[in-house]
């Protein structure tokens, strides 16, 4: 059963009329009849966990902010979908913007927040347009404004566009950016739930998290708990890309095995080739081997396989893929996106990238593998925010699972046919 993507597939789904026809805003109407505490309680009971990557229980986060005596409280939607391989929020933003607005209205009702911001990825111009139209419509119809639905209090909603930094998906960097400051993470504690945007209690929720709320309000916590894994219930959006026959976005219950997603839903590995590797949760999630594809896709199971669910973005690699090049490309991304605040991430990601680049270009030495591992270990556990840790874990796992690929490069050239001669040529995008 789908309760997110069904809205994106309905006729005129981006308009208020189309969304209402498809059943939209029923969840919010229900929330309107409830006290803040009751809404928080339902969400707490539902077991909803944040879909941004960390999987923090949403109800708990709300409660912290709700209980903080400072006012006003701010609700921030993290729509800065920047994790490579991830395109789940984009579908909601472009095709069912009212689902997000409804989710934010429910959250605002729970938090008694009067101002919400959608912090939108800068490279989503189409989403910006649809969102702007949807927000305008919602104001016109009284879902947003000074007196929501004639008695729901005040809720204003604005869009703030990211200027192109991946780190601003980290919630404290997002808040800095929203305030007009340099997009770099802040010290925690204090956490945003007590000292967030403009020094006030602030809840930052992912688009997909908020898109779960209308269903939870409408169907109830019990019904929600029955979907997926009881420890992390509900459906999850899985963007699947790479060497599969039917790349795309799939809404499946939490805990659906990875191989089922690849083979049953995404049509299996392209061209009948053998599966070599899968990144299960966006580029920051450590890579899995083909043998690990039986892993259930949820917050609990993936760590047992040495990885994490992250954004749920599945990136599939077939047997012809050079994993050194994948590692190099991943590190190129992390180096570019490191904000520069802390030493190990700023300098370490760049160093890893240069060594990988040299190996891929044929200048590798056997000692480089130990060097790479050493650099990774020098980064891990010492960075300011998880970006550097993610980069180092990713790099370490490419080496751990595909050491043979690395060793095969030491002969002087990349053994894979489709590899480019110099990885730095062109835009740095992986070759087709």
């Amino acid at each position: 059963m789908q309760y997110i993507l069904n809205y994106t597939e309905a006729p005129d789904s981006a308009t208020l009329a189309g969304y209402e026809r498809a059943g939209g805003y029923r969840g919010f109407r229900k929330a309107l009849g409830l006290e803040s505490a009751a809404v928080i309680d339902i969400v707490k009971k539902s077991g909803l966990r944040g879909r941004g990557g960390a999987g923090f229980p949403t109800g708990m986060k709300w409660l912290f902010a709700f209980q903080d005596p400072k006012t006003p409280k701010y609700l921030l939607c993290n729509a800065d979908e920047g994790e490579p391989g991830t395109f789940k929020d984009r579908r909601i933003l472009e095709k069912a913007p009212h689902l997000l607005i409804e989710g934010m209205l429910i959250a605002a009702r729970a938090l008694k927040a009067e101002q919400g911001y959608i912090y939108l990825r800068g490279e989503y111009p189409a989403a910006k347009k649809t969102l702007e139209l949807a927000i305008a419509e919602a104001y016109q119809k009284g879902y947003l404004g000074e007196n929501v639905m004639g008695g729901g209090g005040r809720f204003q909603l604005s869009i703030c566009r990211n200027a192109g930094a991946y780190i601003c998906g980290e919630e404290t960097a997002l808040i800095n950016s929203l305030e007009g400051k340099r997009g770099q993470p802040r010290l925690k504690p204090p956490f945003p739930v007590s000292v967030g945007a403009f020094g006030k209690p602030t809840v930052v929720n992912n688009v997909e998290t908020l898109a779960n709320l209308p269903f939870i309000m409408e169907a109830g916590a019990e019904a929600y708990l029955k979907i997926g894994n009881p420890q992390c219930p509900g459906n999850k959006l899985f963007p699947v890309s790479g060497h599969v026959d039917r790349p795309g976005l799939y809404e499946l219950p939490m805990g659906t095995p990875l191989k089922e997603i690849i083979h049953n839903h995404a049509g299996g590995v392209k061209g009948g080739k053998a599966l070599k590797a899968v990144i299960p949760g966006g580029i920051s999630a450590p890579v899995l081997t083909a043998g690990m594809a039986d892993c259930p896709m949820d917050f609990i199971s993936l760590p047992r396989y040495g990885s994490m669910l992250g954004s749920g973005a599945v990136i599939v690699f077939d047997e012809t893929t050079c994993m050194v090049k994948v590692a190099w490309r991943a590190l190129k991304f992390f180096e570019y996106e490191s904000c520069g605040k802390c030493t190990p991430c700023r300098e370490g990601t760049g160093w890893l990238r240069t060594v990988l680049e040299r190996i891929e270009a044929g200048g590798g030495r056997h000692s480089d593998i130990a060097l790479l591992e050493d650099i990774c270990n020098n980064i891990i556990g010492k960075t300011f925010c998880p970006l550097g840790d993610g980069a180092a874990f990713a790099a370490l796992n490419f080496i751990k699972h595909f050491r043979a690929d690395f060793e095969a490069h030491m002969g002087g050239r990349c053994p894979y046919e489709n590899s480019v001669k110099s990885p730095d040529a062109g835009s740095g995008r992986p070759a087709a």
Partner: protein
Amino acid sequence: MITVTIDGRKIELEKPVTILEAARGAGIEIPTLCSHPSLELWGGCRLCVVEVEKMPRLQTSCTVSVADGMVVRTETPQVAQARKAMLEFLLINHPLECPVCDKAGECKLQDLTVKYGAAAGRFEEGKRAYPENTDDPIIVRNMQRCILCTRCVRMCEGVQGAYAISAVGRGNKSYIEPFSGGRYDCEYCGNCLSVCPVGSIMSRLHRYSYRPWQMDRKVNTICSWCGVGCTLALEVRDEEIKRVTPDFGAGVNKGLLCCRGRFGYDYVASPQRLAKPLLRNKCGELDPAGWEEAYDFIAGNLAKITREHGPQSVGAIVGGGCTNEDGYLLQKIMRGLGSNNIDSISRLGLLPVQQIIEQALGPGATANLMEGIKISGAVLTVGGDPTSFNPVLGLQARAASRLNKPVITIGYAPGMKRHRSLSLNCAPGQEGVVLAGLLKEIFNIRPVTGDNNSLGEAIGRWQDILPSAGKVSELSGAAALDIKSAAKILAETHNPSIIAGRELASYGMGKANALLLAAIAYMLHAKVFLMSELSNEQGLADVGCAPELLPGGGSNSEKGLTLMEMIEAAASGGLKALWILGENPVFSLPGGDAVTQALKKLDLLIVQDIFHTETSGLAHAVLPASGWAETEGTYTNLEKRIQLLKKAIIKADRPENWRVLAGVGSRLSLDMAYNKTSDIMDEIAKVSSVHAGLAYKDIENGPVWPYNGKPPVMRRTPALFENSRDLINQMINDADAQKRLPGFRLALHRPLAHNGYMGRNSRALLKIDGGPRAILSNGDAERLGLEKGQVAKVSGANGAFKFKVELCADVPEGVIYASNVFKGAGAMGLAGYRLDPETMIPIAVADGLKVEKA
């Protein structure tokens, strides 16, 4: 009580501090690069990591607070490995050019690499390369060496409040740059380079001219540029000040400096300094002479004039940068000759305003500690921009704003534009009207109750003449609503601070304004801080450099002339001899040519200064003065804190001022048997009640007024309030009249890089601010077709000058702010004056000026 264990030592703490602070307090050193006690927490360099029991990963000790029962280990193999790794990372993009880097020897990265770093690097790929940027004349940026600790940015934003620099770019390609690009468009406080741990941001003034370990000496002393009295250290090599360095743990400034103190030291070694005494010969030319010859000449002529024309025909003026000892000796000579004609530059504002406020509120009412400003409930500034008058005092007002305290400015205060919650803008001379309106509104909210004293009674008598907010708005231009909300903010806050500058009394009715200020302070239980433009205005008043005051502040009933009265007496022939120590009245006083003509009439003009000035050209005897850093002595700052000046340059070419004064004094049969400056202080301690028993050894701790002694019994002045009603009425009428004057009205712009006329002798300060400027309102500039950077001609009855135009929203229409720094372009030259009979301040009168494109 919190108990933590660090490296096996139990440490008890009153309140939760960071692990780093707790460790340092216990003498356990943890290496850091990005953390700094004056700056916001950051946690970026990751060098200060430590092991904390029950915490899964290493923790940065600079950001994690201690908790009761915490067990911390600062030196374990895991910690050492992490530090080694961080240094290896930092050195990836750090050029190994220590042999040519000025920072070598005091570079934190270098020191830590020696202690924790690997013997060799493993990074073989190319380093980040940025060319060194020398676009700025003062500060050189070498971004290749930058370790991106952002101390400089946090200093600039979070402490200085200048918001001039930022990290630009992302990740390992980030670098620090001013928003203005190559050259800094900033306040040049240099605090960024004070905190740079490596050689990335450095001063160009002394590049490649020393190694830190080659300094001959480092002398902790007091800055001479203004009355804040910042502590700083002079580092000297070959009898030349190489650089000024801050001490973040000491003094009233806790390491913060302004551009004058940081960079304006080179004038001491200027080849333009006066070297030999000059005596006017029979042909009217100045001839070099020996010191003994000069003493004889001066003493002989002073004695002769006194004999022939009586003691009232001699007088002396002491400049605001002179030490207490120098000032004391000159007043001793004058009083020894039988004359009370002795005054200091403090007469132009600080002393008269202080006398009125202290008579109203009590002796010592203006002796308050600056560090209290940021923790006071609110801040009100009036009569000058604290960030240019007394820059480091201004930082306290900015700090208050950063702590979300309301900050209200009256009049021109562009340095506070980002740090004030409310601006009651008005033209110069209208401050009193705004104060009167504010007092009326405060009275409405919080009436005077209980206290049955003369001030309370007086305020009661003023009530019906105080103008309404609407009337104030009409007269001054400050919005009525803003006056009401300012009054509300101030009336509802606890113990606000009021920072007042001498402009409160420079353009109008000083006594009325000072009384109103005292009344507001009284109503609000506010602490009053009087800005002191020059370094020792307070001290000179304390040691008797005023006709009505004896050393110690005791009143003197015998008649003497104040500063401007002496000039007038010279013009009328009553004054025959004038000794001017460290001041340039021809340039600094309003009146222009009238002052020159007056001084030309003297039979004997003695000018003792470190450079030739407009005034020394008129002198019969010119004595080269010893400068700051060349003499010992004491300064008393605006808090009324007495502080010790040390001698940094030992082999100076000239005798110290006090020796010169003593040389002349002894020839006049005065007791001048001093061997060192402390002997003079010992004598002051005998004759002055406030300095009673004070010796140099007590001054090390910077005692605050009444330094060591007893406050003098304040002379009861029932007259203080007698005419107050009339004065306030007159002040309001004056404001009304002023409003209707045609043409431009001139006021003094005080550039941050200059103070008085001394800055023009510093090459460094001239590089920062090299020419006369005039600040206009946007509206006037548009009307006159003038743009920023263009040259404008300002002309009036007394002459015409050219200035470079700048625009500022704080300038009301019809007003032009111009600087009085540069030869041939001093704004004071355009002004006439009238002597305020209440304060004896020469009030600059410069109305009806014409401004046009040059």
